[in-house]
């Protein structure tokens, strides 16, 4: 028994193959476009579209090169060993306290946000039409649109003032986790939604329950998406400034391990504060902090793109 021959489009010399369209509305649209002259002006519109795309590309490229060039030029000259081994002393010294504080807050943010985000994303991706999934999606979309300063202010009023946590590591981590949560959630939702229906049916067909299916099969399959969400959350937590002003505060000392009642230093505060100081040493600290933050975010961005490409 021979296999059926593959489908071949009927070729007519000089004319591209077009499938027969049975949709009456589509045919009516085509007649309308052909009669209105839009078909004749299509090359012009195409040229306009490509020109706008090229202009946007040039604009973005120039802006990014400008920013990176400025930060590299001024940041590299400000870098020294002191930056990495000494804490800040007034308007000088190093940035060890800020580097350590940023790392601590990033870790705390991941601990708080990743389990919740992965769980919510898995639920949204595997059961997209469930009412809870739609609710999570709505809140997630809304939370992405809320300015981070509003979240910072709300957390200042609730955590710092009402609950009495004061400027602290815990308040900062909770705020950053709330900011990162929708991004992790959406990335994970996309990753879990991309799991093939065949795999899902196969897992349930061999008798696995929901917990086994998600933890042992779906989560490993969605790992690239999960990792991308985690890296994105990490870059957000490192680069945020406004909400941390109201929740983390600033400290010239290294983190003493206390989660509450003790402010903590972070790199973005150094940029925000020291760039406006009239002293060269303070400006150098700001540019060094900017270089460190930008390099880290750039590395994370490249890593997440590589992971996505590998998927």
């Amino acid at each position, binding site marked *: 028994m021979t296999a059926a021959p593959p489908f071949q489009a009927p070729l007519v010399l000089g004319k591209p193959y077009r499938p027969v369209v049975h949709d009456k509305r589509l045919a009516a649209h085509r007649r309308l476009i052909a009669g209105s002259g839009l078909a004749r002006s299509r090359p012009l519109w195409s040229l306009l579209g490509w020109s706008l795309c090229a202009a946007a590309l040039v604009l973005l490229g120039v802006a990014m090169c400008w920013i990176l060039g400025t930060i590299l030029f001024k940041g590299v000259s400000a870098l020294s060993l002191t930056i990495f081994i000494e804490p800040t002393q007034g308007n000088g010294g190093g940035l060890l306290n800020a580097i350590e504080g940023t790392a601590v807050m990033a870790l705390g943010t991941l601990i708080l946000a990743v389990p919740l985000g992965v769980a919510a994303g898995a639920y949204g991706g595997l059961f997209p039409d469930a009412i809870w999934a739609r609710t999570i999606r709505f809140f997630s979309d809304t939370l992405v649109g809320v300015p981070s*300063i509003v979240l910072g*202010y*709300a957390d200042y*009023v609730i955590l710092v003032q009402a609950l009495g946590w004061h400027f602290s590591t815990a308040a900062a981590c909770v705020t950053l986790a709330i900011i990162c949560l929708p991004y992790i959630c959406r990335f994970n939702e996309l990753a879990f939604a991309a799991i093939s229906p065949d795999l899902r049916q196969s897992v349930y067909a061999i008798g696995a329950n929901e917990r086994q299916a998600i933890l042992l099969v779906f989560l490993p399959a969605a790992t690239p998406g999960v990792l991308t969400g985690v890296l994105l959350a990490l870059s957000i937590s490192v680069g945020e400034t406004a909400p941390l002003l109201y929740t983390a505060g600033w400290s010239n000392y290294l983190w003493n391990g206390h989660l509450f009642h003790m402010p903590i230093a972070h790199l973005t505060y150094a940029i*925000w504060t020291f760039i406006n100081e009239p002293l060269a040493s303070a400006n150098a600290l700001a540019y060094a902090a900017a270089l460190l933050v930008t390099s880290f975010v750039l590395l994370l961005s490249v890593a997440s793109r590589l992971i996505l490409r590998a998927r």
Partner: protein
Amino acid sequence: MDVLMVSGNALGSLPSNVFGPVSTMASFIVSQLDSALADPTGFAIRSLAEIALVLCLMSVAVNTVARSLLSYAGRSQQ
């Protein structure tokens, strides 16, 4: 924050041209919190909370309209 750094944060005045200083609601919250904390009556803090609430409501409203448009477009394509 970034807008605040370049906008000039002109309080209580409308910009006369596109190159004039301007203030946004978010930058107003950032710039005024320090002085608001020093207000013993608490009125300044509540004022900033109202601005934050307006920003939040605007975000929710825009998001709701966007979702409605997407839903409407999806239904019309079917």
